[in-house]
């Protein structure tokens, strides 16, 4: 297994369409269809509008620490996916699954976050469907 808190794996999932991030901006201009899972340690959790932000540090195979940043919905929507204002605190070990950024940088659109004790937040199925796919309104 990779050393420390290493990047775990990445896999591509074909999404059906480019979709919005439920309100503030569309996901299609910022994120690819690739789903990435990374292990890291929480640096901060910002519970605010327009989107909640999780910042966490990931230590690579070379020992280099990279700050990752991932966003989810505004609090009133994130709440429905189990997130709360106090879901994460600095130092928490997390496994983060997200849509990778178009830029290729350490950014992502949160699909699911799992704490070391197994507590889960988010919705993996929602990510696979592209989160907000329903915005293709009926």
């Amino acid at each position: 297994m990779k050393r420390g808190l290493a990047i775990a794996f990445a896999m591509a999932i074909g999404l059906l369409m480019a979709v919005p991030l439920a309100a503030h901006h569309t996901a299609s201009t910022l994120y690819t269809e690739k789903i990435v899972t990374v292990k890291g340690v929480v640096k901060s959790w910002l519970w605010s509008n327009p989107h909640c932000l999780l910042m966490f540090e990931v230590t690579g195979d070379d020992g280099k620490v990279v700050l990752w940043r991932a966003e989810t919905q505004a609090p009133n929507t994130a709440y429905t996916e189990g997130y709360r204002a106090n879901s994460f605190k600095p130092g928490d070990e997390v496994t983060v699954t997200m849509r990778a950024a178009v830029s290729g940088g350490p950014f992502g659109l949160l699909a699911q976050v799992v704490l070391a004790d197994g507590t889960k937040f988010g919705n993996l199925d929602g990510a696979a469907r592209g989160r907000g796919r329903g915005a293709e309104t009926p």
Partner: protein
Amino acid sequence: MRSSAFVSLPGAALIFAVTVFAQNGSTPTWPEPVPNRQAIAAKDKKPAPRRSLVGMWGSMPGNRQATNQSSGVQLKPNNGRPENQLPYTPYGLELYKSHKPLEGVDAVPPASTNDPRVRCEPLGLPRHNHYDLGIQIFQDEYKVAMLYQYDNQWRIIWTDGRPLPKLVDGGGVEINGQYREPRWFGYSVGRWVDDYTLDVETVGTMPEQRVWLDNTGRPISDQLRIRETFRRPDYDTLEWSETIEDPKVYTRSWQTMKLPMMLQDPRTDLMTRYCSPSEVDAYNKAYGDAVSGK
């Protein structure tokens, strides 16, 4: 800064102080802050009360995105499909092309947008009808008051028989022979066409430099007329439709939405969505600019 015409949600609550003072001791705890009522079985449906829209209204189960309308108005999502092309005038198309939205087929990254919403400008009407809907409605014999969950805004529809103001060329309205300025929510009057259907017309909204129709940058102008119908077919259901007419921007009128809304638990301590300039700034500094490659 916000216009003084905007009064906070607590201000609106004072208008209905008589309701606030009513007490009910049947809530032993705080219910969920996000409306999530399940569908009502047909056998449990009750008749609608006569001439009343009062209640907290949210999306139908599993249909939250229809009330979010983030990819454009409900009946015409901005997805590039031919059936969703709009009848722009040349000026309307020019306006649309000048907008840099965060949603829709012409979306740009957060760092490049000129959406007034991102600066926390009020959405105005009808964009408030097209974004993250959740509505609390109060009414008395003179008016219907709608409290929008997004940014804690509120709006009055007069139902006391007063006439619709005359729309003035160049924006604003004429009331009793005097000019009145454009407003974010315009000037709305409503008329009950039967005991369960309220027709509402609105004019005098803000000019095209200040407001958009939806998140995808569709334009509207100060010559906009909004026609809404609120129909309550049963106790738990509200059908809310909207048609707009704007000869500066569109060559004909068109329907933007026909939303089914569901009555929610009146005890919900709503978790509202709001726009805070400092929070938007913090988001952009921590994330939006960087992920946009800025």
